[in-house]
């Protein structure tokens, strides 16, 4: 399709090991993500989902294939993207506010100082950190740090938002709250989002589609459409929702099946 904001075609990645052998990490990845869509990459650890995300973000080279963001071939970090890192990755020597302002660095010439300050303040408020704006990262909780990481990614109003297991290091309750906050934020922005996670419930709650990846070599096994109505604003809305549990089971089956279905059974066509 032509209106894909993120267009991945035939992409692979391998590391040279010894003279003749090479380790294939990703093979023949094809994925199109359309404007405003939220797609999750799910898979067992080692399937290369983070590597794939970093390729879209221009942080990791690929060969062969082509990754395009906004129609432009990715050979360095694309313009107008936001990236949320696993452990927030805030600069410890900058305050929360100053860290959020980093998200405007790319556009610093198009804003007056006052304008930039206002935007940062508004974004800090949106993630509920106004009270902590002048704190250093180590003075706030992990959840607040990740909120700041999210604010930094969003403050420049990026076309593409890439998130690498942003809530993985948080406790279950904080994680749920942040998932709900993210759902609300995503509803309000038009950013096209790719979200890496190993939490299937999280993927079902947030995504329009879920790309399930398999290991060895990493490739996209199946893309599952999450045909649940939006807006989805609270995790509990999905509790007891039949379709949600079906989707969840389907994704889990794909992830787990990848590892446990013995080849003989698969060959005989007696798939569970």
């Amino acid at each position, binding site marked *: 399709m032509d209106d894909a904001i993120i267009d991945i075609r035939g992409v692979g990645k391998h590391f040279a090991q010894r003279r003749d052998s090479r380790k294939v990490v990703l093979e023949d990845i094809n994925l199109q993500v359309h404007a405003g869509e939220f797609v999750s990459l799910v898979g067992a650890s080692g399937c290369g989902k983070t590597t794939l995300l970093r390729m879209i973000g221009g942080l990791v080279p690929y060969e062969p294939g082509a990754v395009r963001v906004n129609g432009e071939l990715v050979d360095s970090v694309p313009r107008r993207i936001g990236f949320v890192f696993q452990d927030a*990755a805030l*600069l410890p*020597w900058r305050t929360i506010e100053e860290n959020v302002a980093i998200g405007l*660095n*790319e556009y610093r010439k198009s804003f007056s100082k006052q304008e930039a300050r206002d935007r940062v303040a508004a974004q800090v408020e949106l993630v509920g950190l106004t009270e902590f704006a002048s704190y250093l990262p180590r003075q706030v909780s992990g959840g607040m740090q990740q909120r700041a990481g999210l604010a930094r990614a969003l403050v420049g109003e990026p076309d593409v938002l890439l998130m690498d297991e942003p809530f993985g290091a948080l406790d279950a309750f904080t994680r749920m709250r942040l998932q709900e906050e993210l759902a609300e934020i995503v509803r309000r922005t038009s950013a096209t989002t790719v979200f890496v996670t190993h939490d299937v419930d999280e993927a079902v709650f947030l995504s329009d589609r879920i790309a399930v990846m398999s290991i060895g070599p990493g490739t996209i096994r199946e893309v599952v459409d999450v045909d649940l109505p939006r807006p989805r604003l609270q995790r509990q809305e999905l509790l007891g929702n039949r379709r949600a549990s079906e989707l969840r089971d389907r994704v889990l089956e794909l992830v787990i099946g990848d590892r446990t279905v013995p080849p003989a059974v698969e060959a005989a066509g007696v798939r569970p």
Partner: protein
Amino acid sequence: MKRWGLPLLSVVIFLGIWQIVGNRVDPILFATPSAVVDAFVAMIRDGQLGPAFLSAMGDLAVGYGLAAVVGIALGMVVGRSEVAERVLNPYINFFQATPLIALVPLVVIWFGVGFKARIFVVFLFALWSILINTATGVKSTPRALIDVGRVYKFTRTQSIMGIALPNAVPSIFAGLRIGLGKGLIGMVIAQMNISVTGLGGLVIDYGNAFKTAYLLAAIITASLVGVIAAAGLEVLRRVLFPWTKSEGINTW
């Protein structure tokens, strides 16, 4: 109270034992604390200790200041550039392995026996720890922070000044503290062996004269120089870089 009580008690008991034992042995071997205090007061009164203290502080400040500037600058270069690291590594390793005191006669041949020679010795002693720690700090920039710079389009200058350098600050300060200890040694060696001046000069003179109480007073004043300099460095760290934590490294 609890934090200070026990160390204080320990020092008081130690001084008490020293005083009692010291009274029973030859004062040349073992001057008592009270004799050291008397010597200290006498040296201040006759105008020896003040200038000696200032001379020690001056030599240390200039030589160490130079070492800090050069060490941090070179450390940045070595940490950022693999070529620079390979080019400079043999020299860094040589000076790390060499007992620097053996270079003092060479320094005298180059710079004579005055102020220049002394500050060069301080510089030479202090430089290497600062350089190496700065390079290590710069090299150990976490991958995630480098990525942050890339994603948000930092310029080269921004990523050096805004990420690599501040990230290296705790490591640089660790180097500065180790370098200070070594610079202090260099300063006393220079004052003992090059010019026979300042605190090192007093140590030599009173040692040769077997005036043990005066000798000890001079030594304690030299420790005082170290304590003051270390405290100054710590204040600097807290004021300039409040986001760093004290590393708690014992340096001498």
